[in-house]
């Protein structure tokens, strides 16, 4: 069943954001489920400047490719190299070990609460 931790914020593009400093970003279990087994990740470079809503990478599964968006503006502080090496952890633990990148935030796009995201996904 879909699981949306209350302490996180969400986007309509199925990303989650933990707004600590720096902010941690990943994809939701709805996204992980829809993608199928993730086999390749392309993440932004550390130090790169990103804009909220802009494409910053790709998530590729056995069957499809999806673009990865940044829900916030800022500077990339860190990327999850373990997930790049072992993309299956995105399916196994999307809110934990399967996080994707961290951003020093300068601005945010439109973010949803867990309840709003649940409504958005029909869960």
């Amino acid at each position: 069943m879909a699981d949306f931790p209350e302490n996180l914020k969400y986007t309509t593009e199925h990303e989650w954001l933990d707004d600590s400093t720096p902010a941690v970003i990943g994809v939701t279990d709805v996204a992980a489920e829809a993608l199928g087994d993730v086999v390749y990740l392309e993440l932004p470079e550390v130090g790169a400047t990103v804009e909220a809503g802009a494409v910053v990478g790709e998530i590729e599964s056995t069957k499809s490719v999806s673009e990865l968006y940044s829900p916030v503006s800022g500077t990339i502080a860190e990327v999850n190299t373990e997930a790049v090496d072992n993309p299956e952890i995105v399916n196994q633990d999307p809110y934990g070990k399967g996080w994707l990148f961290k951003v020093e935030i300068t601005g945010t796009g439109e973010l949803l609460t867990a309840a709003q995201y649940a409504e958005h996904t029909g869960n």
Partner: protein
Amino acid sequence: MGEDRKTPLHDEHVALGASMTPFGGWLMPLRYTSDLAEHRAVREAAGLFDLSHMGNISVTGPDAAAFLDHALVGYISKVREMGARYSMICAEDGSVLDDLIVYHVAPGAYSVVANAANAELVLEKFRERTAGFDVVLEDVQPGQALIAVQGPRAAEIMRATAGLVEDAELSGGTAFDDLKYYACLGMRFQDAPVLVGRTGYTGEDGFEIWVPADKAVALWRALLAAGEPFGLVPAGLSARDSLRLEAGMPLYGHELDTTTTPFEAGMGRVVRLDKVSADGTPIDFVGRAALAARKASAPARVLVGLRGDGRRPARAEYEVVQRGVGTEVGAVVGRVTSGAPSPTLGYPIAMAYVTPEVSAEGTELAVDVRGRAEPFVVVPMPFYRRPQN
């Protein structure tokens, strides 16, 4: 578009938690849990597939074999009783309308199993081609389900399945243990006759079972129960696609379509220009003249296997290019028809049509993966061949 049709096993898939997807006019299981886990189960143990969407046309009558020799490119009159043969139906211009399997199920009786999306067209073309032949065509798909057990443990699972038994009256004298690859056998499940073919689309040993629709759920459950100790899992279309790709098998709509003849697809062997009737005269099958001319001329493009050196898979419709400097994209030399990360081999594999000049094994090419040239090399197919014991 009408609503997608549901197979007799639809509720079973939903109860097992499958993600359902439209495919060829049907709502089919895409995956139950994980594509990769289902794929690996078929390679290492076994997978259970619902293939009830496949078309099934019964061809009977005194001229059944002669009709199929005329309507298809294969030499069907040479298929022995209880044998099976992979074949194709072509248009007059030699293009492929569908690929299919013909089972010789009884004297003068054949079952033709066509792709779901093409089943109606095949039946229509068959009807157009019956002039002068004493045959009866019947769409027998609606009353049936088709369940496949595929994988190295498939035979053991079949033997262990409660209610699935040999029946001397249905078998034509063949024992299940003697059933050969690309042959079929009548068996009994509970009180119903079933047809078992030792055929499949995964590159593994396996069986395909046609069962009356009202027995489909019982057989599905009996196979799952019998298979569990052997590692059998239900497997969806996603695993089916990656399995057939590793096995180098074409998929209609990807490697085969109405712009392709069997020769470009590397399947020229299915075209039997040597077919003759009982009196020794050549059989004039539909597409013969065009295919004979095509065989005699050099192809404009060739289907090849590609192995990726990187981690990014090529996908259908991506362009095959010459290698440039770094990730620079060079001149276009072809197009990918199917591509995926190979779960068994651990690297990307693809099938592609390329110009003959770059089709030799070992040719270093690249695929334009969304603007970046990813290195690929031409390799022989199949990519994967099951271990022989």
